[in-house]
């Protein structure tokens, strides 16, 4: 399988006042195209930092980071933004839906701001994604009228509107109960199966990772364990 993410000896150190705080220590890991990968670990283990690096939101302190062949760490802020717009979809723990926009408008937003897609095409894409995520009948509702699971479904649809190569989800189930969390993860897997997009997500809840292909366990900025999951 082709590698879509390559991390070689990646370290990330934050400066907190006079003190250097290492968030990631010499991480080396590859992620193949179309896989459904999870990083698990407790809070502060470096999951979010790692996803931020893969998502080209941040740059490593040292090491080589390649996403879809591009060394994103060497790109300028503007080029990283373009790269994200073309290649990465994001799902956030707090959903980050815009409260004053409807479900439809929230999903449409990236197409307006990032891709400048013509109206007819926008309608087609948004409706198709809302249908796949089971939210088409809720498209006129506002986020405040939705349950947590529904909000995250909308967020999944929004992450896929720009047809990204990778979808990154940072703790997408942290604010959901177990059943809803499992349903959201299943939806993400279903979307992966249908679109072939690589899904990478982080969680501290080991119970919901049963459906993933690979689990990397992080602790104190180090990958302690990587295991492939065989689905029987």
């Amino acid at each position, binding site marked *: 399988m082709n590698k879509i993410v390559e991390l070689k000896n990646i370290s990330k150190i934050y400066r907190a006042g006079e003190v250097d705080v290492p968030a990631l220590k010499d991480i080396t890991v590859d992620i193949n195209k179309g896989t459904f990968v999870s990083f698990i670990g407790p809070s502060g283990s470096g999951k979010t930092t790692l996803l931020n690096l893969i998502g080209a*939101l*941040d740059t490593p302190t040292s090491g080589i980071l390649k996403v879809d062949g591009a060394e994103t760490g060497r790109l300028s802020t*503007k080029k990283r*933004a373009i790269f*994200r717009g073309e290649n990465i979809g*994001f799902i956030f723990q707090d959903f980050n839906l815009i409260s004053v926009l409807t479900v439809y408008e929230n999903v449409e937003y990236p197409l307006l701001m*990032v891709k400048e897609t013509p109206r007819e095409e926008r309608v087609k894409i948004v409706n198709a994604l809302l249908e796949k995520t089971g939210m088409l009948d809720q498209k006129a509702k506002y986020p405040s009228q939705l349950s947590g699971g529904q909000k995250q479904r909308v967020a999944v649809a929004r992450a896929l509107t*720009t047809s990204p190569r990778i979808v990154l989800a940072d703790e997408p189930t942290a604010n959901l109960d177990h059943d809803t969390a499992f349903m959201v993860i299943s939806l993400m897997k279903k979307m992966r199966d249908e679109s072939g997009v690589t899904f990478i997500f982080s969680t501290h809840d080991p119970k919901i990772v049963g459906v993933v292909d690979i689990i990397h366990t992080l602790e104190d900025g180090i990958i302690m364990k990587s295991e492939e999951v065989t689905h029987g």
Partner: protein
Amino acid sequence: MGNLIKIAFRNLYRQKRRTLLTIAIISVGVIAVLLFSALSGAFKNMMVGQITDSMLGHMQIHRKGYVSSLDNLPLDKTIDAKQMKKMGEILDRIPRVEAYSKRILMGGMLSNYMETTNIKVAGINPKDESIVTPLLTSRIKKGEMLKKGEILLPELVTKGMNLKVGQSIVLIVNNVDGSVNGQNLKVAGIVESVVGPTGKYGYIHIDDAVTVLRMDKPEFSEIAIRLNKISSLDKVTRQISLEIVEMKNKEGEPIFEVHSWKELSPFYNIAKMIDLMSLFINILLVAIVLISILNVMIMAVYERIKEIGTLTAIGTLPGKIRTMFLMEGLFLGFFGSVAGSIIGIILIIATKFAHITIAFGRNENILIDPAIPFDQMALITLVSTIVAVLASLQPAIKASHMDPIEALRYS
């Protein structure tokens, strides 16, 4: 760009109350400026009209040095008949010149056979003078416009000497050689005094002036000119200056000079002060727009930090985020200015119908006619809109430079 406009509209629509309040604040500022500009402009125009139409005319031509020795009314700094003919040809060629009036100014003594007083008199052709200074006729409080052998006397002189219309007086003047001459004249009317130079002059017929000064041929102190439109004053002043500068003395120096009413009347400084006040009010408007938009946009950025983080994360370019906020400022400024302009115009029209009158100098019940030229209104709208965009610049730049990781972490 179309999408950004749509999003900017949506964002403003989110906070309907705040958007309306900001638009209202800008509108109030624009209304205040429009009303003030219209009223101060009307007052200024009325004031200028009173000065130019009562006595000065829009501009005057004199022999060089005459204006600087105006208090003495020198009779040796005049425009002779030959020069006047040439001057007439120049003025007749300029279509913006509506009319001109030749004047002979002199100082002398006025006697009612019992008492004598000082007086300054302008010899005029009543027909020409009525066109150049159309308010002269309305200044005649008693009696009527003079004919040959008659005099219009200033009100204060008639009061002091207890003179009535129809009475005879003697006007005694020195001619250019210094010899004293006198002429009997009948009081044709009493003319209201006005503030400003020549505002307390009496008037006689120009032929009587020639006679009393024992001139072989008429020699004129000044030519008062009226234009079709006062707005072309500077242009015509320049044009006439260029033409008469060609009339030179033996030493090769220009003989004549042109002065617009601005140089002849101290009221020009008041007019300038009105302009300065308008400028101050305009600066106030700019401050209102600037502060209200800045406040709203800073609030908008702080409220939407997480949203900006999300937008940045999904790949929205900083330029687009900046443009989105600038658009919001632009729309607030534009709609506020347009709403203000519409309400302002309605109020100006209402003020027109209210028939507001004021007293100026000794003139009472002068109707104030407020109006705002379209270009001035357009300028006020444009400036308010531009200021709104400029006020949005700092918050917009702040939003576009936001670190997505920090922004997403914000709660």
